[in-house]
């Protein structure tokens, strides 16, 4: 997994909390920095894809590993 600047563990949280927490964390980050989000909500896969397309923050990686979903988001 690539390097990241901050990590957000949204395990156990359901829609829309993983997105809202991610947005809040990104607000406090610099452009170009990478946020690693961990989630267990299966709906978050499509949601983070949509979040990235609509906000312009690049979704560099999206994968499942051992029942958890990992997202790498680069702040635009």
């Amino acid at each position, binding site marked *: 997994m690539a390097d990241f600047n901050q990590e957000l563990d949204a395990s156990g949280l359901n829609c*829309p*909390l993983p997105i809202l927490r991610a947005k809040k964390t990104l607000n406090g980050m610099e452009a170009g920095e990478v946020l690693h989000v961990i989630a267990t909500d299966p709906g978050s896969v499509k949601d983070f894809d949509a*979040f990235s397309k609509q906000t312009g923050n690049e979704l560099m990686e999206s994968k499942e590993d051992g029942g958890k979903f990992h997202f790498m988001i680069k702040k635009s």
Partner: protein
Amino acid sequence: MDEKKLAIIATKGSLDWAYPPFILASTASALGYETQIFFTFYGLQLLKKKLELQVTPLGNPGMPMPMGMDKWFPILGMTLPGMQGMMTKMMKQKMKDKGVASVEELRELCQEAEVKLIACQMTVDLFDMDSSQFIDGVEYAGAAAFFEFAGESDICLYI
């Protein structure tokens, strides 16, 4: 790119129906939408400082019941005193177990994200409600004010 706009009318005042307006408004804000929710009739309950929202299976055959209760309790059983309180408690516990945010939390997130919350002045008067019952930051307006924003919105929802 111009900021997109979302206008919502919230008309319902039960625990289950409190979710759609606050979930959609908070998410829209995270996506960069400018958002307003216009609360009218029973939707005004969602603006109270102390939320006392309840859920009921009465008149709602689509509501899944825990432990097959619908098979053991005929619908009349649901009218017994205390039944609504019990159903509400069970629903809240279920939501907590599944990591679903509380209505209070989602409402706070909306306010943090500067979602504009507007109470319909006419229904506030109709129900003899008072602005002191509502959370801070609520604005009061009528139908014409709603259209001023909704007319320019990209998405407009009636909930």
